C-alpha cells in the first residue's frame, strides 16, 4: 500500500519535471531519467509479486479494458448480431462478425458496463440464457461459413435469477459445451478479465485458451468459496490464494495455453499496451489454428479436454 503511494508520488514528480523540461533554459533530462529508473524498479518490486487476491482485484478493476475495447482496437469492422431468435437479446454477451488480419471471424464477447446504467442493462456482465443461446446460434453460423470463433471472456458468472432458471440456464450452458466440443471451425478463447465458472466456460471450450496475466478463471469466486467452505465471509483472501485462479497457476495446470503479458500494475495502467500485447499473442495462435486442418483441430480439441483432470491410480494392494 505504501509502495503504491510512493509510485504515485514519483509519477507526479516526473510529470512536473517534464513540464519544467519544456522550458528552453532548463534541462532536467538527467534528473528525469534517474527518477524514471527508480520508478521502474519500484514498480517491478511492487507488482511482480502480486498475491492472487491482488490479481483478483486487478481483474475486476473498473478501469480495466472490457471486451468492446479489444474489439475496437484489435479487430476491424465489428458487425454486431443480436438476439437468440427465441426470447431476447442479452447485452452481457455480445456476438458478431469482425475482421482479424483481413479474415472474417465470429466474436463472442462478454461485456461489463462502465456505468451503473450500463451495468443495469448488461446485468453486470452476467449473461442470461438468452445470451448463451445467441452464442450457440452464432456458433452454427461460424461453422456454416468456416469462420473462426473467438471468445472474449469476462464475467463474474452466469446470471443467477428466477428468469434465468425458468429459461433453463443450466441446459443452455450444457448445450453450448456440447456445441463447442463438436464445432467444425477453429476456436480461440481469451480470458481478459474475470472467468467466472460455468458462465465463462460456456463460451470457453476451444482449440486455444489464452489468458491475460492478471485475469482470473475459477470454479467459484473467492467470496463464494469462503462462504461455502469456511462458512466465514472473512476468508476471501485465503480462498483466492487456494483456488489457483491466476494465469500463472492455470498455465501449470494445462488449462490455458499461454499467458498474455500486461503492463506493470495491470491492464488498466496502459490499455493500449495491453491490447497490443493481446493482439500479438492472439494473432500468432490465430494463424496457427487457421493453418491446421479442421480434422486435426477437432482431434486435438477432443484430446485436450478428454485428458483434463488430475487423479491417482489405486494399486490393488493398497
Amino acid at each position: 500500500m505504501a509502495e503504491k503511494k510512493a509510485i504515485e508520488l514519483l509519477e507526479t514528480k516526473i510529470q512536473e519535471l517534464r513540464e519544467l523540461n519544456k522550458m528552453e533554459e532548463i534541462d532536467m533530462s538527467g534528473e528525469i531519467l534517474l527518477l524514471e529508473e527508480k520508478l521502474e524498479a519500484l514498480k517491478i518490486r511492487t507488482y511482480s509479486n502480486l498475491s492472487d487476491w491482488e490479481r483478483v482485484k486487478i481483474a475486476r478493476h473498473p478501469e480495466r479494458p472490457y471486451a468492446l475495447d479489444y474489439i475496437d482496437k484489435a479487430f476491424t469492422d465489428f458487425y454486431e448480431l443480436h438476439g437468440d431468435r427465441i426470447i431476447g437479446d442479452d447485452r452481457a454477451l455480445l456476438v458478431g462478425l469482425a475482421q482479424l488480419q483481413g479474415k472474417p471471424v465470429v466474436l463472442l464477447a462478454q461485456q461489463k458496463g462502465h456505468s451503473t446504467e450500463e451495468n443495469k442493462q448488461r446485468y453486470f456482465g452476467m449473461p442470461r440464457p438468452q445470451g448463451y443461446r445467441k452464442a450457440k446460434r452464432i456458433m452454427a453460423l461460424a461453422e456454416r461459413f468456416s469462420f473462426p470463433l473467438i471468445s472474449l471472456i469476462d464475467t463474474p458468472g452466469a446470471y443467477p435469477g428466477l428468469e434465468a432458471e425458468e429459461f433453463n440456464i443450466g441446459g443452455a450452458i450444457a448445450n453450448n459445451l456440447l456445441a463447442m466440443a463438436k464445432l467444425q471451425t477453429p476456436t480461440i478463447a481469451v480470458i481478459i478479465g474475470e472467468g467466472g465458472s460455468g458462465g465463462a466456460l460456456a463460451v470457453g471450450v476451444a482449440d486455444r485458451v489464452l489468458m491475460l496475466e492478471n485475469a482470473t478463471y475459477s470454479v467459484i469466486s473467492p467470496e463464494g468459496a469462503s462462504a461455502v467452505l469456511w462458512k466465514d465471509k472473512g476468508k476471501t483472501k485465503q480462498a483466492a490464494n487456494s483456488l489457483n485462479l491466476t494465469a500463472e497457476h492455470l498455465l501449470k495446470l494445462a488449462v490455458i495455453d499461454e499467458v498474455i503479458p500486461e503492463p506493470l500494475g495491470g491492464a488498466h495502467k496502459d490499455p493500449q499496451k495491453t491490447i497490443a500485447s493481446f493482439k500479438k499473442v492472439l494473432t500468432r495462435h490465430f494463424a496457427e489454428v487457421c493453418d491446421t486442418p479442421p480434422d486435426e483441430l477437432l482431434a486435438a480439441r477432443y484430446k485436450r479436454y478428454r485428458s483434463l483432470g488430475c487423479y491417482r491410480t489405486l494399486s490393488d494392494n493398497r
Partner: protein
Amino acid sequence: MAIFKDKHYLRVKLDKETDESLWMQCKSCGELVFKRRVRENNNICPYCGEYFFLTARERIESLIDEGSFTDISKPIMAADPLLFQDTKPYPQRIEDAQEKTGLADAIIIGSVVISEIAVIIGVMDFRFIGGSMGSVMGEQICHGMEEAIRNQCPFILVSSSGGARIQEGILSLMQMAKTSVVRAQLAEQRLPFISVMTYPTTAGVQASIASLGDVIIAEKGAMIGFAGRRVIRGTIAEELPPNYQTDSFALEHGSIDRVANREHLREELSNVLRFFVRQ
C-alpha cells in the same frame, strides 16, 4: 485407508449409522419406522412417502435386474493438485468421505442389466462430499460413456450432486467440458444417453452432462437447477416461487422430459430403453 484392501474397493458397506439402531424417526412425519422396512421400501417412508437418500449402491440395486451389477469403475481416487486446505486438508476430507461411504469417490460405474437390456450406468452418491464432481467423477463418467461405446449399449447417469468439487478448483470446472466432449462421441455413435436427475442435480452437474441426456427423467422430489436459492437471494434479493427448482418447476419450464416416482423409476428406464435397443 484400510477399506481399499481388495480390488472390490468400491463395494458399498452398510452405512454405520444405519446399523446402530433398528429404528429411525422419519424427519417428515415423525413416525418411528423399522429401518429395514424403510430400506426395503427404496428408502421411502412407508407412512408419509418421504424419500430419504439412497446410497449409490442402493440406487443401483433399486434399478437393475437382481444380481446383474458388476463394478467397472476405474481404480482411481482424488489427488490434491492444488494442495487445497479449507477447514481441513483436501486429502483428509477425501479420506473421511471414503471411510464414511466405503466409496473411492462420489460415483460408481457399473455394468448392469435392466429388464434384460445390458447398459452401463453411473450413479452418484451424495454422501461423498455432496456428490461433488471433481477429476475422479469426470473421469469415471467419461469412462462409463466409453464403455458404453465399446459395448455399443446405452449409458445411464443418475445424478445426485451439488455441483463442482471446489477443492480441485478449475480442474473440477473443466470436468463439465470433459464430460461434454465425450458425450459428443456417444452421440456420434448414436448410442442413447438417459439422464436421471435426483435430489439434488444442481450447478456444475446440471449445467453440463446431466442436461445433455437424449431423455431426461427426474425422480419425484428432485431439486434441479443452476443457482441455488441462497445465491439468488444473496445476489438479487428476488422473490422465488415455492416450487423453485423442484421437479414440477423443471417440467413446467420444459427442462426435463418426465418425472417418475422412485418406485417406478426402474419401469420407467425399462420403458424408455426398449425404444433404443433393437431386439
